[in-house]
Structures are given as C-alpha cells and as structure tokens.
C-alpha cells in the first residue's frame, strides 16, 4: 500500500468535492436542517422540560437516515463515472500510481469531505444545544455522530460500486436515486408487504433489516437513545431478545462495517479490470 500516493489522490478529491456545487449545496442543506431541527428541539425542550440532547439526537437521527445516504450515494456515484466520462481518469491513471492508489484515494477523499460536512452540521448543533440546554445524553449524541459517519461510509461504498459498474453520470445518478429510494422507503414498505403476504416471522424480518444499512443504523441509533420496546420496533425487540444489548450492538456494528467494506472491495475488483478509454 502506497500511503503517500493515496493521500495525494484523497486530497485532490477533497478539493474537487469542495468545488462541486452539488456537494456544497447538499452540505449546506444538511447544516441548515441540523440547525433548524436542533432549534425546534430546544423550543420543545424548554416547554416540556426534557434534556436538550435527547430530543435533538432523536430528530437528527431521522435527518441523518434520510439525508446522508442521498448525499453519499450520488457523490460516490459521480466519483469514478464522472472522471471516466470526461477523460480525467485517464490523465490520473497515466501518472505513476496504481489503480488501488486511485481507487482508495478517491474513496477516502470523498469520505473525508462527507465526514467534514457531517461534523460541521452536527458539531454546530451540538455546541448550540450544549450551551442552550446544558446536559442530557451527550454520549448518545456523540454515538449518533459516529453512527452517521459509519452509515455515510457504507452508502458511499455502494455509490462507488455503482460508479464503477455503470460508468456514465446519467446512469449512475438514476441508479443512486433508485437505491436511495429502496434503502430509505421501499425496503420498509417491502418488508411490511412481505410480512403480510408471506407471513414472515420476527427472525426473517430481522434478517431483512440486516440487509439494509439504513435499517442497521436506525436500530443502532434507537438502541442508543432508548431501550423501550415500543420505541425499538419489532426488529429491535427481536434482536434485543435474541442477542442482548451488547450482542445486538456488536452484531449491527459488524454488519454495518461489512456493508461498507463489501461493496468497496467488489468495486475495486471491477475497477482493476475496467478499460479506461
């Protein structure tokens, strides 16, 4: 592994992301929505007397589950396909770097840019809530930030795989949006439909949930906030019953890490053999 070359490509990718209007717009929206939600949470907390971080974390979890996959799937999708289409990937790969250097550097650079936007959005929110509302579940808030970064890494991997496989901007953007709909909305509806039609048991619903990184992050995030059975939902309750708190957390974290690693590895195997013309 050539760390210097990977770091150089990653730094180039960060600079390119910061110049991208789509990234700046999406990161700005994420920042504004985080801030807006935390303000609303604070207003509610002052009326109900709830601690600031708990309410804010719950609101931000839903925002992260919706917004982060959209940002990362499209950004990851454009990463390689965009450069392949306009010819700049050929220029990059004609330099003395390996395909692994280019691939890893591009992924890490995009991950760094996405992580920065998440940290800025959530960081500002944390400061405002901390100053205005004082204590509460700070650990839960910090866990949410870490979880969001991990979810971002997983969906960025899926975006990168789409980028290598589909090769053109138009196809990648279409596919990224379809995958986002699938992960965020359709999988829920599909699970409900399957449960009714095929009379699925809790174990089967749990396995279906494990296939979706958004669901993995949702259960993990909810578990951090509250272990009340009505909040966790059937998947969380089944997991908690089968594996216990620590077991379920370790299992979900492992699956989320695997969801980040597997598409990334598949994408590299594909990229290594991709003709750059």
């Amino acid at each position, binding site marked *: 592994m050539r760390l210097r070359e990977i770091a150089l490509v990653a730094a180039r990718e960060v600079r*390119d992301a910061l*110049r991208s209007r789509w990234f700046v717009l999406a990161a700005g929206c994420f920042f504004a929505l985080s801030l807006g939600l935390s303000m609303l949470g604070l207003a509610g907390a002052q009326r109900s007397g709830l601690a600031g971080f708990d309410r804010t974390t719950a609101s931000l979890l839903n925002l992260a589950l919706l917004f982060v996959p959209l940002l990362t799937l499209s950004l990851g999708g454009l990463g390689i396909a965009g450069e392949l289409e306009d010819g*700049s990937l050929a*220029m990059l*790969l*004609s330099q*003395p770097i390996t395909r692994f250097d280019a691939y890893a550097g591009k992924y890490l650079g995009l991950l760094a840019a996405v992580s920065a936007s998440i940290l800025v959005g959530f960081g500002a929110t944390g400061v405002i809530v901390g100053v205005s509302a004082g204590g509460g579940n700070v650990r839960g808030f910090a866990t949410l930030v870490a979880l969001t970064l991990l979810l971002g890494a997983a969906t960025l991997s899926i975006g990168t795989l789409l980028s290598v496989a589909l090769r053109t901007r138009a196809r990648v953007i279409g596919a990224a949006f379809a995958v986002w709909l699938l992960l965020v909305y359709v999988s829920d509806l599909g699970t409900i439909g399957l449960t009714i039609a095929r009379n699925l048991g809790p174990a089967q619903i749990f396995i279906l949930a494990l296939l979706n990184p958004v669901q993995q992050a949702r259960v993990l995030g909810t578990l951090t906030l509250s272990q009340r059975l009505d909040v966790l939902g059937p998947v969380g309750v089944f997991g908690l019953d089968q594996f216990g708190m620590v077991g379920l957390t370790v299992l979900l974290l492992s699956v989320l890490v695997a969801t980040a690693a597997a598409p990334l590895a598949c994408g590299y195997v594909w990229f290594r053999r991709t*003709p*750059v013309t």
Partner: protein
Amino acid sequence: MIVATDLCLTLEERVILDHVSFKVARGESVALVGPNGSGKTSILRCLLGLVPFEGRILVHGHDAVREPIAVRTLLSYVPQKAAFGDAPAAEVLAFVATLRRIDRARIPETLRAVGLEAHASERVRTFSGGMQQRLSLALALLSDTPVLLLDEPSASLDHDGQQTFFDIVARLRKRGHTLLLASHRPEEVESLTDRVLHLDCGRMVGDVAPPTKLARVIALSARGERR
C-alpha cells in the same frame, strides 16, 4: 527503448489490436498512422496500462503489466482530448509535481513555455480545447520523462499553438527523448518523426522509414483507404 510483442486487445467483443509488434529505439521518434479505428490510440493506452491487453510491452526493460509504476514513471501522455476536472491550471501541475517528486518551482516556467502563464489560476474546465492541449503538454514538460506518448497532440491548437508545440517537441527530440506519436497530420509526422508505423484494422501493415514515402502513407491513412 519500447518493445511491444504480439499485442492483442479486444473491447466489447470487438478486436481493436490484432497481434501487433514493434520496437522503438531509445531517442527515436516514431509515428503511428492509420485510418480512424485502426488502433493508434489503443497502442498508447496499452503502454499506459489503461486497457487490459494480451501480449507484452517492455519500456526501458520494465514490463508494463508487472511493473506499471516503473513504466508510467518513464512515460508522459498528451491525449487527443485532455481533461483535468475543475481544478485551476497551477493546481493540476502542482498535483503531478508532488506525485512525481518534481520541484514545484518549475511550474511557472513550464506554464510560460506553453503560453499559459496568464491563466495559471483559472479553472481548467473553462479552458478551450487548445488551452487544455497546451496544459497537457505542460504536464509532459514538467514531468520531463524519457518517453513521450502523443495522441493527435496538435489537433486542437491554433497556428501559434502548433508552432510552439513543434518547437517544444523538436527541443525534446534534440535532448534524446523517445517519441511515439499517433497522428493524422502530414506536417506533424514529417517534421517530428523518423519512422512511420502504419496500422489498419488493428494490424501493423507497414513500417516506413524513408521520409519520401511518408506523405503517401499519411494521405492514404487520412482517406481511410486500404493498401
């Protein structure tokens, strides 16, 4: 020295190169000519490892498949249609300089050599085709590699740009750089190369040395006629 042996390339079930072999001596300047789709650009892409090929390529004794870094360290590439994303010109050069461990102080003089010193801080995406081509040449100059791969290098250049390009390449030849040039332009081939390799339908059909035959070979190639 470049030694290509039995190169075969098939992309999307189409044969692009069919058992192509050739040698280019150190310091020699060789043109690849042939009709569109004859495989000129593909040979350059094989040398750079951009496409998966069968056969063997050695550049200064390094195998292009087994030692791609060693090979690409020796090569610079000026493509037909250069693209560098949305970075400013100076940043593009700085990236390559850092990657190749070249002194960044050389960047201004390199930009000056291709007439882009006034555009150093401008984004490359706003450049015309000719300016992108100049930048591409600037990258090759900055890298100062012993082998240059040029793919229709002056196609997008205006008259002044072509003159600058010819002067730069002539200087590089005098300094002993090896050149492999894919081109349709007779004046480019005649003034810059010693030998012509003629390709047709992915096959090597001619290796022409005497300059008197060049014009005829190029004229045939440009019209896409078969010999």
